[in-house]
């Protein structure tokens, strides 16, 4: 049986959750703006359906309300680490394709990459607070995907940004759940459980 959370830990967790919620909210607003610009500048149809792309973390989840706090943090962390790599790849592809021709989009992607990195770090802080081991990043990462055509790159980029926008909303909801005090122990719901 896990020990009750100390008042200072509870306060720190609530503080981290509040800041995380603000970070995620800002990230979402920026992704939505970037999506509009991306669709226009890449000449894509905004209503185009993009099939799930391998390696892009899907935000959709069943029984979301039944997840434990630890599950929420771990799934979020895995997702944002993946987005960090995907956005870095998009940035590089952008620079290769357009050089300096589309500096605005490049700058927006770079800014988003920073936010995603910051949020991933924030999640690690929350996991540390819960005395949870932080899962290591997978060695050098997955093997590089096969080289995509330009059009495939653009579609994958659209898929990445769309899923990131969904994840940003999900993260806000997850952090709100985490910030809720548990009625019995004072700990966050689900976080007092053993792995």
């Amino acid at each position, binding site marked *: 049986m896990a020990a009750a959370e100390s008042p200072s830990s509870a306060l720190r967790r609530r503080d981290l959750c509040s800041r995380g919620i603000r970070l995620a909210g800002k990230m979402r607003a920026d992704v939505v703006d970037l999506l509009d610009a991306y669709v226009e500048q890449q000449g894509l149809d905004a209503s185009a*359906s993009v099939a799930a792309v391998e390696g892009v973390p899907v935000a959709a989840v*069943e029984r979301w309300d039944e997840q434990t706090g630890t599950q929420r943090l771990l799934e979020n962390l895995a997702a944002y680490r993946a987005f960090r790599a995907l956005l870095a790849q998009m940035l590089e592809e952008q620079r290769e394709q357009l050089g300096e021709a589309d500096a605005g989009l490049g700058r927006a992607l770079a800014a988003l990459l920073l936010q995603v990195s910051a949020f991933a770090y924030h999640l690690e802080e929350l996991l540390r607070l819960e005395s949870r081991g932080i899962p290591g990043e997978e060695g050098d990462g997955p093997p590089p995907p096969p080289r995509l055509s330009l059009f495939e790159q653009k579609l994958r980029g659209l898929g990445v940004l769309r899923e990131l926008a969904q994840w940003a909303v999900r993260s*806000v*909801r997850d952090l709100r759940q985490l910030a809720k005090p548990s009625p019995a122990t004072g700990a966050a719901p689900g976080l007092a459980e053993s792995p």
Partner: protein
Amino acid sequence: DSHIQYERVGADVTMKCGSMDWDAAVTWTANGTDIDESHLNGSYLILKNVELSQSGQYSCYEGSSWHLKYQTYLRVGTPPKEPVLMCRSNNYPKGFYCSWHLPTPTYIPNSFNISVIHGTKDMVCEKDAVPKNRCHIRYLQLFSTVKYKVTLTVTNALGKNFTTLTFDEFAIVKPDPPESVVAKPVPNNPRRLEVSWQNPSSWPDPESFPLKFFLRYRPLILDQWQHVELSDGTSHTITDAYAGKEYIIQVAAKDNDIGTWSDWSVAVHATPWTEEPKHLTTEAQITETTSASTSSFMAPPTTKICDKGAMVGSGAMAVCWTAGLVVAAYSVLFI
């Protein structure tokens, strides 16, 4: 045999008298009233360019025996036009509902069939008992980028039509308006009104899915609304109300992160606190009555230029120090 026959408005209808020969002598009635022979072609009844008012029971009797040979109920109507379909989630994240109606009546019975697809998955939309033209769905997944596709088909005896709606999970989130809106004056504060409200009862988990609110208010005598957006809490104090004026106030709600604003709540009315008028002498009462009837708008207290304590003189000639100084200054200018 009696049966129902559906025909389109404007159609030409021919009714046979059962198995009677064309040249048999028959009498037709509509709702019990004999039909003139001019509408007959032999024993056939011909109704040209039928109208809605011609719906009813048609009976055919053998000429001499008055045996009933055929009976039908004619229902004149139209095939359905494209139905109007709406889907909305007012109880996020539990699910959503879809409701529909026909833009124009068909005057004959219609049946509706709804299908909901999420990606490749068929979902069941459970029909509500009340109202009849509505069904609801539970979300199996949250935060999905895959769109929902809802197709509604309406069918009647004269034809069918359909419409399709495609949307994503976030776009249809629209809470019901806030409930129990109350507006009260604040004692001893002539420019304040305290407004409070409650989350709509249909919103299942306001703690995890908080709502933000939009308040609008105006005095009844003006058309322009003031707006305030509130990111948390279910109360607000208006501090710039015009003293003594009746206000109309409404509140709307939206999920903090997704979807659209609710409709406006039921309007409430309130008037800021005003001081009780003091007991006046007869002369002063007459003066008060005269001036009140000519003034249509009372300036807010902050624009008052005279305190009672600064009055000089008495009765109708009372003048305050400030006003006296202003008058004196102008007099000096014009001498």
